């Protein structure tokens, strides 16, 4: 007799479950669609529903705004550098935790993951006072360091999970067949790690790109894009320009996350080597 399980294909969900699922999705997504909608409205400040008319004129205006351009490039630079830092440190940490037994391993593993779980405000305050105590000027670099603290975590988690799945005998098999450490790294470890590294990097980039709280505490007079958008919200005019920028942010962060999910999902096919 077939056992009854909630994941049976073809089995119908109850209508209460369906309605609640749809309601929850709408609740999450309607505000975002409204922003998209009002990126095209003809009104300049106060909004009315439905929009009196639609126009594309805000898009070139938003892109041409110098403050917005500066903020966008700063944010991209910060995200790229934080991601590179995270890739290096996260991979090394994961390799150490996976391969070696050492004193305080569990504690270090916990401390590495903590910044992601900790409220941003705590990380922010801690970083600000630490950087202040060391009399390091708040700058572009302090933002990068602030972002790297939580970007390291996603790379670390992804890579560690992959190490655990890949297992140790593959490395031994490669060496057994005549490959030295470098050849083994090149032909076996790297190809097996590549998708985990890419997925980790994309997630780290997205996290850094829209970060507000830690940035507020670690920035000097720099304005990253999310902070620029936030400051624009206080101004009644040029609302549609802000909306266009917000739409841009959604696209820049959502597309990489979709790609990352694809990569992780497709790499399952080839790794079922058990």
């Amino acid at each position, binding site marked *: 007799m077939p056992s009854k399980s909630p994941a049976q294909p073809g089995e119908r969900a109850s209508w209460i479950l369906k309605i609640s699922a749809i309601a929850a999705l709408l609740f999450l997504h309607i505000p975002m669609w409204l922003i998209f909608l009002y990126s095209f409205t003809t009104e300049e400040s106060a909004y009315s529903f439905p929009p009196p008319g639609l126009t594309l004129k805000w898009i070139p205006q938003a892109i041409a705004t110098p403050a917005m351009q500066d903020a966008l490039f700063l944010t991209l630079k910060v995200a790229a550098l934080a991601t590179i830092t995270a890739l290096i440190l996260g991979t090394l940490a994961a390799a150490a935790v996976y391969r070696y037994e050492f004193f305080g391993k569990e504690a270090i593993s916990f401390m590495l993951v903590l910044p992601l779980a900790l409220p941003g405000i705590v990380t922010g305050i801690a970083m600000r006072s630490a950087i202040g105590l060391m009399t390091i000027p708040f700058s572009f670099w302090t933002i990068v360091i602030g972002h790297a603290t939580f970007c390291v975590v996603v790379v670390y988690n992804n890579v560690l999970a992959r190490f655990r799945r890949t*297992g140790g*005998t*593959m490395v*031994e*098999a*490669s*060496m*057994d*067949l*005549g*490959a*030295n450490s470098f*050849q083994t790294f090149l*032909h*076996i470890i790297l*190809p*097996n790690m590549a998708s985990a590294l890419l997925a980790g990097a994309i997630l780290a980039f997205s996290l850094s790109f829209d970060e507000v709280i830690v940035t507020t505490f670690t920035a000097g007079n720099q304005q990253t894009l999310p902070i620029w958008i936030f400051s624009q919200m206080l101004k009644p005019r040029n609302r549609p320009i802000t909306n266009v920028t917000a739409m841009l942010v959604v696209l820049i962060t959502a597309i990489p996350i979709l790609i990352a999910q694809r990569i992780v999902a497709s790499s399952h*096919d*080839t*790794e*079922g*080597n*058990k």
Partner: protein
Amino acid sequence: MKESAILFKNVSRVFSVRHNDIAGTVKAVDGISLDIRDGEFFSLLGPSGSGKTTSLRMIAGFDRPTSGSILLYGQDVSNLPPYERDVNTVFQDYALFPHMTVGENVAYGLMIKKVSKAERQKKADEMLDLVRLPGFADRKPAQLSGGQRQRVALARALINHPKVLLLDEPLGALDLKLRQQMQVELKSIQQRVGITFIFVTHDQEEALTMSDRIAVFNLGKIEQVGTPAEVYEHPATTFVASFVGTSNLVSGEVAKRITGSDTRFSIRPEKIRLGSMSDKIDADMVSADGVVRDVVYIGLFTRYLIELEGGGDLVVVEQNLNTTSMDVMKAKSQKVRLIWKKEHVRHVEG
């Protein structure tokens, strides 16, 4: 006598362990010496934790002896890394590379040696033919069954024509039918390629079927080295007698009543004849009387548990030549006389 393929000279491997903050050491391999000859199919047999796998890993180079030395055809390899030894391994979990095709997996050793691509493909196809997987080169390991992965692992390990091939319980994950088929096939492949095979297993039947010689491991030491017949018929120690096949071990008063000496001895269940109380005993025979306590009919043979008069139990196995399951059940609770030849009594140490 043929030259030595692998020679263990007083090899030990000590691991330091920590458990609940108490540091200690474990002697996984405890001063063993062993001579494996060229072209042999040699099995390292023992329960888990007996040191057989550690010994294999030291031959492969994944582990190094704490003391003593290992010689590969006369060359001391004790401290060489795995990639500088002319030895290849078939791993228990196969350890195929999931991102490569079957063909690329098999040709990996040649790619590392910088053999040309055409040559590599030709050799890989030959190896896949040898393990009876022709035409599988373009598949991914994930698309193969357990038995097929096993063959790929074998082809990959053989392509470099190593001096010695190591097999770490390679049949452990296969079902019984496939396992028996692979046992025969492994043996025939070994005879065709003429390479020394060192085979680690905890399955005594597997070791007896396939090996030219067997080393029986227990607690980091070797209890006995010999041909399957020697190990089975003349177990050197109590451990060997009980680990390899089923054995009846008799000692003390009961042993004295049967053989006249209280030294411990072993007798194989199939060497004992189940006779009636009126049977005569010849001069070269010994006997013991008892009552049948249990009868288990297993189709090919029947197993009887006999409670001896002087105390203790003996297991007796008889082939079902003329008997059916109905007949053998009648034996239960009957008084019987067990008779066997004196020469089958093995006095054992320990």
